[in-house]
């Protein structure tokens, strides 16, 4: 990572427009009041973690898995025991119809 991007992070300011964009991406409905609260929380958090840019990570590989495991694979077998009946599958749903989950109409091409 070059010095340029380091600077970008530590001087990061978050705009209301960014908050709205992120809320859309995250599918979180927010109010006007929350926009500003979140903006401040963002800046507080981003300022704290900006210190990470001081760490020398050149030639370091990222760790996504601490176990070091590889090739943890499953044989292609049906596991009946773990499967839900239709009733169990639907048990906690807000709305069902004839064995289906129901949602208000999503994007169609009419």
């Amino acid at each position, binding site marked *: 990572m070059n010095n340029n991007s380091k600077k970008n992070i530590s001087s990061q300011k978050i705009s209301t427009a960014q908050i709205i964009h992120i809320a859309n991406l*995250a599918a*979180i409905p927010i109010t006007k009041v929350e926009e500003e609260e*979140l903006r401040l929380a*963002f800046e507080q*958090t981003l300022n704290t973690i900006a210190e*990470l840019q001081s760490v020398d990570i050149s030639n370091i*590989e990222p*760790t996504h898995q601490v176990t070091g495991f590889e090739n943890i694979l499953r044989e292609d077998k049906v596991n009946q025991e*773990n499967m839900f009946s239709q009733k169990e599958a639907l048990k906690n749903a807000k709305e069902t119809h004839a064995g289906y989950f129901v949602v208000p109409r999503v994007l169609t091409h009419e």
Partner: protein
Amino acid sequence: MNNKLTLKKALDKLNDKSLTLEELYNDINSSIESQNKKLNVYLTLNRDAFETANTNLNKPLKGIPIALKDNYCTKDLRTTASSIILDNFIPTFESTVSKNLKNSGGVILGKTNMDAWAHGSSTETSQYGRTLNPLNTEYLPGGSSGGSAAAVAADMCIASLGTETAGSIRQPAAWCGVVGLKPTYGRCSRYGIIAMASSTDSPGPITKTVEDSAILLNYLAGHDPLDSTSAQISIPDFTKTLNLGVKNLKIGYLYKDLKGLDEITKIFSEQMQVFETLGATVDVVNAINPKHGVSVYTIVQRGEVSSNLGRYDGIRFGKNRSNFGDEAKRRIMIGTYTLSKGYADQYYNTAQKVRTLYIQDFKKLFKTYDVLISPTSPGYAKKIGATQGQAMFGELEDLLLEASSLSGLPGISIPCYKDDKTNLYLGMNIVAPMYREDLVIQVADAFEKATKWNRWRN
């Protein structure tokens, strides 16, 4: 007052029939009845607990009542993660660890309050109200497994289960003056536990004594084919290293000169001398500054959270996304931001590289030292309301635990000092290499037995 029994003593008494399950459950239930309203420990109680216990006398855990953090999915028993999104959620399946517990004769007494979605170190983010610290109700119990730690501290169960991503078992255990064991990542299955940060989530016991943790871990741990990160490593008998002492062990004293710990460093250093009197060597060691761990943990955990909490859309179960509390909203959105186009490399990928540095650092330290020890948390329990306006309250409270948690290492917190003015305890955190819970138990047990800080032992 049979509710004050340790797991070990309760098992012994049930074994030699000097105690009946009825006596045990009566005392536990009256303890819950008299305290739960004030402390707000249990969100849901299992009405069938006693009845179930009676069918378990022939199993190793004999029907002992255990409290579960409310992020273990329990079949036919409400599971909320302390979020109103799951207010009506009754799982139709069982988490592997709670299944293991049940199969061994443990009985789920109830589900305990926590920080909503395990986001926090206080229980103040719970959408069902905070839990109070049983040691002093002006204080917080810590979190996120605050309810489970408080349940043990208040003798409202014999033992409990929590989960930890970085501190969520050990920090509340420290604040409540009990024992919290965070196993190696992968030692206990994550299947059926509401995911917070998938790459560090570790279920584990919160108990009255180290011995109790060792006993319980024997029944919780094990490979689970339903969890691809679950270790295919045989499980030792974790009680085997009890009473072995620490003679000739090499102990690294971590974070002694860290700024901000001044308040407790003097007390803690005195307690570290106990190990020397027991025949171990103690060296102050230098490790990578733990403050980077705060940043790494914040980025990794919020990134994973933003993805893990996507499924709460109100369609198949639960309520829709407008019901998230403030803390969950903040975490989901910051995680969304740090993973988004143009930022992932600066944040997420950088964090995972610094994580590698910590792993390497611990590997190096463990070449010389058997275990590493530090305070569990930078101070005593904080007062209620302390999280107000602190977007990173939890991360900063867990400063001393994040680096090792991100590295997947096992650790335990045990009480190591009591402040008589507040009745609050300090916790001692003992960390060992991957899969060496036995060492953690050995060292913690030796300290516990050599000192006066455990309330149940003495």
